[in-house]
């Protein structure tokens, strides 16, 4: 256990260093980064002065070290478009993104189980056929297009759900205002429904297929046959024997799920004008506000890495075989 944890921790540290290196090099890859920080009509002297002020005249490795030193203090420099610390802006948008991601993750995990089970126990029937077809479709629809279609249908045609906006839940909760947070909650969820479905579609479809195929496999297993031959009801066999093992593969990917969902969140936020990190990144990309892009990307990547580390460590406790294999799956 100890050795595994140490190795896994070490690996995460290397990955975090990799992330910082990539985001540092991204700034350099487009040539002299000084030009991002000066206006187009700046004189040669102004450019020189800016270059010195921002430290771009120093050797690369020195620049990298000071970049990392600033990072550890949460300092990504000033956002070029907002003229305030990039990290502050990103942190402000973080709770909204977390709300959307968690909501979508819950949808993708909770709904996948009944759908997958329904398809598996009715294998070969119309139920199975339509669920399998729907999940095939779900894996082929771009999340942002799903969002656009839902805006057209639910937002403009039958006018059932709001097509933009966000009511904060986590922000008041974290600042200690529990009353406001829970008073907001119904409206928070109401606003999360359309973007949440758009983000979740792909994962939901994939998880449904996963539950279906792993349940089909488990239902063939010896211990299920044993349970059946003991005369247990089909329902009991399903719930107490088969399902337990069938959804293990789904649990395994919970950590990675966040990464998948993140891809959707970034674009879907833009579609719904949802005030999270995704929309912020979109605006920052269009204004070439590199410090803001760096702050957003590094923050999201760090959360992803941390989450995967946690899932792995929890997993070792749940499944002792992992330790012996020396890695996950």
């Amino acid at each position, binding site marked *: 256990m100890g050795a595994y944890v140490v190795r896994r921790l070490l*690996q*995460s540290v*290397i*990955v975090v260093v*990799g*992330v910082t290196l*990539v*985001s540092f090099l*991204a*700034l350099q*890859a*487009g040539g002299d980064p000084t030009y991002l920080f000066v206006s187009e009509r700046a004189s040669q002297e102004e450019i020189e002065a800016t270059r010195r002020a921002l430290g771009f005249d120093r050797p690369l490795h020195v620049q990298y070290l000071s970049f990392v030193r600033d990072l550890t203090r949460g300092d990504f420099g000033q956002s070029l478009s907002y003229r305030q610390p990039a990290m502050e802006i990103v942190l402000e948008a973080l709770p909204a993104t977390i709300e959307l991601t968690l909501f979508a993750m819950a949808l993708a995990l909770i709904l996948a189980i009944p759908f997958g089970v329904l398809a598996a126990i009715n294998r070969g029937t119309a139920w199975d056929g339509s669920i399998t077809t729907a999940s*095939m*479709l779900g*894996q*082929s*629809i*771009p*999340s*942002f*297009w799903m969002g*656009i*279609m839902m*805006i*057209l249908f639910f937002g*403009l045609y039958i006018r059932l759900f709001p097509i933009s906006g966000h009511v904060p839940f986590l922000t008041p909760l974290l600042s200690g205002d529990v009353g406001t947070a829970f008073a907001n909650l119904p409206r928070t969820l109401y606003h999360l429904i359309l973007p949440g479905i758009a983000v979740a579609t792909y994962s939901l479809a994939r998880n449904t297929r996963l539950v279906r*195929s792993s349940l089909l496999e488990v239902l063939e297993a010896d211990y299920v046959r044993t349970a059946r031959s003991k005369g247990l009801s089909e329902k009991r066999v399903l719930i107490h024997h088969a399902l337990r093992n069938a959804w293990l593969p789904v649990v395994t990917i919970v950590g990675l799920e966040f*990464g998948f969902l*993140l*891809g959707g969140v*970034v*674009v879907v936020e*833009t*579609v719904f004008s949802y005030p999270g990190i995704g929309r912020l*990144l*979109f605006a920052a*990309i*269009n204004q*070439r506000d*590199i410090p803001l*892009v*760096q702050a957003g*990307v590094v923050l*999201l*990547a760090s959360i*992803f*890495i941390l989450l*995967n580390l946690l899932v792995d460590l929890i997993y070792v406790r749940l499944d002792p075989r992992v330790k012996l294999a020396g890695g996950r799956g």
Partner: protein
Amino acid sequence: MSEQLGGGGFEGMERATHADGAIAVANPRGSGFRRELERAVRQMVAARWPVFAVVFLTLAAIAATFGSWLAPFDPNRQNLVLRLADPMAAGPDGSTFWLGSDALGRDVLSRLLYGARVSLTVGFAAIAVGGTLGIIAGLLSGYFGGWVDDAIMRLGDIQLAFPFILLAIMFLVVLGSGVWNLILVLGIGQWVTYARIVRADTLSLREKEFVEAARAMGDSTPSIIFRTILPNILAPLTVIASFNVASVILSEAALSFLGLGVPPEVPTWGSMLAESRDTLVANKWWLAVFPGVAIMLTVLSFNILGDWLRDFLDPRLRERT
């Protein structure tokens, strides 16, 4: 892996012997291939959906190749008088906007046909880049083992620990958009998948008799790797590639939607969707529906094809994709 994949071939040969032994013995390879092809077509027709996928992708490929001849209009020709025309509305000079026109009066159908080119080119080229990198990395990793293996595989772990879309955003913001950068970034995003599978297969093939034989006959290491091992591990990769093209096309659409794809004068399905957002509230649905349907059908076709290919080659591959 070689036995599993060879299975189909032997089966075909066996049948060939029953049917007309002389030909099968004289030319087992040619006959086996024909049998395999027949089996493929039979299975495809029986499964129905793959036929749809092949038909649609053929049409998309035709659109991508001959889009400039098929398109009724220049995709960038603006017509400010006929802006936001409904589908089937009359265009200039007795022509028709079959799928309507956009906010600048450009023909949606023509832009859609041109968009096929970017999606398919980027999809296939990115797989070529990622596949080549991954196959080489996997072969080296599996064949040499040791520190080479460690270095390559840890590099892959690190990349996978970084959400791909963020990596792509970061690089495209700085390198600038453009077809080549897009292909490069999307390709690099895919190499790990190929490397892992190729490595595992190489590891198991390395000790096989026929590799041993090649080594005993004094074949050079590159020859063993590329002539003896590589041909035997390619088949399962086609399955991965098929699913991969689908996910690359989805990523390309998302990046184009974010404005990180190709330059704005090149029509792509993703950027068409991005433009459609401005007229969404005015209920100009055709601008949002058609490009999305195009993406969905293309991705769906590759997914269906991947499923079919997996079942055709070996149902056991299911666990790995």
